[in-house]
């Protein structure tokens, strides 16, 4: 056990399809909450559509954590089927520990090489002696003992989760858990090591337990979304699936469209009808939507697109994360098309950023693209209730019935009142053709200029307030980042501070429009900037270079997925600056 991280343990549970590694992981994370801890969990699957090997990657800590750690302290293998597939993802150290079933055969070389200590527990055999007992519940017991969790809480959780399946399953699960929890091999091994500190009882209380997709969904409906159109794509599908019944509950609806071309156009149609609307997709789908996003900009129809980034280009690595659709989100629209691009920084921020995006799109009658990624979308956190306060943002300006109504009237703010179908005497035709103030198609230079300036002004002159970035710490060294790399950078910042460095971590939440003055203010006394992103071509770096000026010594830490950037990489880069 790494003594530095004594209250912060990272563990992985692997097993072949049906072995229940994910279930065990989920229960362990829930138990963490009941034992005054926080945590997060990622699921990793082999390439099979269903039933392949799976790994639950879990971090449990006495403080709220928002990203995975550099390496794993413990690997529990229910079996070794194809486990070497996970070797890259589950980085062990020489002082890590492996718990494995001796009946599962030899430990794959990839794991053995490090000379890691191994405890062999016959999980399968232990489970076999118990009616309806399963090895993954034995594993849950072993790990709960290892973590010093309360066995009574575990029993209650098992009753709650398996209660529906009847007494035999519940009883078997409880008994298997106990067999693991009291297994002499694990008790002895635990005794031989320093105990992790007990959780601070002050940490008790309600936990929020959700993944980034659900966070975006909640933010969307808080922001007022009542219609969504959907075409399934990994890793955005679960967001759409989450929304469907909930929109219906709220009197709205979700329609499964024939493709992304349809889904974005449906969103525009519904929004034209006065209902705040969104879709969610991932890279390839966003590519298909770009033409219609231009229509939403030109016709000034509010529309929200949540784009959950995955490894690209093309089908790429659909189940893994990469921050690589920034270029497309910022530059992908044709014509001069001012719009909004926001990036969620962590799980809690998925709620805030999506709600903010919906409110901004409605207020500014334009497209808002929210970028998240697979890393956020499909990992689950256990954190304190996310609390935030958004600045006051006006609702969509609705036109009252008026004679001589001009849909695209030139106003000081650039925002023109929008008539909603059903409003008498204000009928108009929304148009993607350039138009006059009344909406009449026009090719006149003056009309084009006036409308371009209006559409640009409404965004440029809007006061976005303090949410443009999340800034932590002070110092002459700044880490500049975005999206899911933010939580990693914040953790690196905390470690650097603990080691005596003064570091400021700036994570940009509002990417378009850019905030050059605000960032310049934050960088005033900064002499070194490290730009951190998960992109091979350094998309964020190039974006920053396009919109901001830097005087400081500026370097990059940019690399592609699928492996997440670790806090240690950032720390190393700063410590070895010279």
């Amino acid at each position, binding site marked *: 056990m790494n003594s530095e991280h004594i209250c912060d343990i990272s563990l992985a549970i692997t097993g072949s399809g049906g072995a229940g590694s994910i279930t065990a992981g989920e229960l362990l994370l829930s138990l963490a909450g009941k034992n005054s801890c926080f945590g997060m969990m990622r699921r990793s699957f082999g390439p099979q559509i269903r039933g392949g090997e799976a790994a639950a990657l879990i971090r449990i800590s006495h403080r709220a954590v928002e990203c995975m750690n550099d390496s794993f302290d413990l690997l529990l293998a229910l079996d070794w089927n194809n486990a070497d597939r996970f070797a890259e993802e589950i980085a062990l150290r020489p002082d890590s520990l492996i718990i494995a079933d001796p009946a599962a055969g030899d430990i794959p070389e990839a794991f053995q090489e490090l000379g890691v200590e191994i405890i062999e527990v016959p999980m399968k055999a232990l489970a076999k002696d118990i009616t309806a007992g399963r090895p993954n519940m034995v594993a849950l017991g072993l790990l709960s003992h290892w973590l010093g969790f309360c066995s009574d809480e575990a029993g209650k959780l098992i009753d709650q989760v398996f209660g529906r399946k009847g007494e035999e399953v519940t009883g078997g699960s409880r008994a298997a858990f106990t067999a693991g929890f009291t297994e002499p091999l694990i008790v002895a091994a635990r005794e031989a090591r320093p105990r992790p500190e007990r959780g601070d009882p002050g940490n008790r209380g309600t936990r929020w337990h959700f993944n980034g997709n659900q966070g975006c969904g909640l933010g969307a409906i808080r922001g007022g979304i009542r219609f969504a159109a959907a075409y399934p794509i990994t890793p955005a599908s679960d967001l759409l699936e989450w929304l469907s019944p909930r929109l219906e509950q*709220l009197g709205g609806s979700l329609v499964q469209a024939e493709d992304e071309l349809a889904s974005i156009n449906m969103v525009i149609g519904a929004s034209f009808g006065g209902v705040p609307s969104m879709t969610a997709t991932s890279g390839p789908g966003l590519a298909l939507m770009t033409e219609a996003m231009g229509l939403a900009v030109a016709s000034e129809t509010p529309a929200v697109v949540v784009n959950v980034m995955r490894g690209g280009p093309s089908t790429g690595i659909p189940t893994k994360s990469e921050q690589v659709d920034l270029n497309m989100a910022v530059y992908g629209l044709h014509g001069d098309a001012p719009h909004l691009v926001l990036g969620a920084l962590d799980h809690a921020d998925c709620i805030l950023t999506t709600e903010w995006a919906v409110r901004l799109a409605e207020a500014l009658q334009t497209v808002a693209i929210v970028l998240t990624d697979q890393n956020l979308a499909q990992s689950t956190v256990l954190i304190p209730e996310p609390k935030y306060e958004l600045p006051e943002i006006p609702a969509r300006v609705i036109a009252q019935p008026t004679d001589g109504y001009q849909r695209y009237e030139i106003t000081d703010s650039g925002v023109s009142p929008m008539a909603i179908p*059903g409003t008498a005497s204000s*009928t108009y035709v929304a148009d993607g053709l350039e138009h006059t103030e009344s909406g009449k198609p026009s090719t006149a230079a003056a009309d084009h200029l006036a409308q371009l300036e209006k559409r640009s002004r409404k965004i440029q002159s809007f006061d976005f307030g303090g949410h443009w970035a999340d800034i932590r710490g002070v110092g002459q060294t700044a880490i500049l980042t975005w999206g899911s790399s933010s939580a990693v950078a914040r953790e690196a910042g905390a470690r650097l501070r603990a080691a005596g460095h003064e570091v400021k971590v700036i994570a940009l939440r509002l990417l378009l429009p850019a905030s050059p003055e605000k960032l310049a203010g934050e960088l005033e006394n900064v002499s070194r900037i490290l730009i951190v992103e998960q992109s091979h071509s350094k998309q964020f770096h190039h974006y920053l270079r396009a919109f901001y000026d830097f005087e400081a010594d500026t370097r990059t830490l940019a690399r592609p997925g699928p492996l997440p950037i670790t806090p240690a990489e950032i720390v190393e880069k700063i410590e070895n600056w010279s």
Partner: protein
Amino acid sequence: MDQAAQQIALTPKDFKSALKPVWCPGCGDFAVLNAITKALAFMGLPREEVALISGIGCSSRIAAYTSVYGFHGVHGRALALASGLKAARGDLTVLVAGGDGDGLSIGGNHFIHACRRNMDMTYIIMDNEVYGMTKGQASPTTAPDWADSKLTPHGTGIRPFQPAGLALTAGASFIARGFTGDPNGLAKILVAAIGHKGFSFVQALSPCPTFRPEQMLWKHHVKAFDQEISSNPVEAAQRIQADDGMSTGIIYQNERPVFRPGTGVDNGMGSIESEFTI
């Protein structure tokens, strides 16, 4: 306002906007505009409760020439945009209009899915068997041997779609064909189409004198179907197949469940937020 009062209040002219169409003299699309405004006036629909959605093409310009709510969107996606509008605003009367290229080529996927989805809306394809706006290329309804386009100097060599047949297989619940040479007949078809509960498809034969001058002879070929409206898809398919594509009238009508997403009842946030806590 009751229906009778509306009828007195609004004439077809009231459903036209002040804009002068960009169409060439003699373009069939004028007659489609007239037929739509006539149908709407006849039905006594309040202008603000109607929305006309279109894509891109000469024909798609039509949205701007009416005085109802409209959306002139992007090429090929009018049906998708209209479906979103109708899903969110089931109270509106939604009409969609555009060209054969818009609806059957770039928008072909939306066409078959809109037929299948059977939302309560009316779709008019203004079929001139050519891309007018881009100056005369072959469309999916152009005959294979039409060789007047520089893009396909030997003709397309590909058999055209039969829009009515396509609509039938894809599940449209109302299928008709009209001709712009008979705007009153077309208006009558539109009244029935708009009144139909479900997805109604109207193919309007609408000549393009500029790029298909030979279509000016259509008036000599067009005739009325001599059979009653069928509610039997097998019979309708036979009728469509046996026809030369120039017979007009309502071919098929069969009510089937209309797609209406959601209940419209707001039950509040309820447990949604508490699902996040443990």
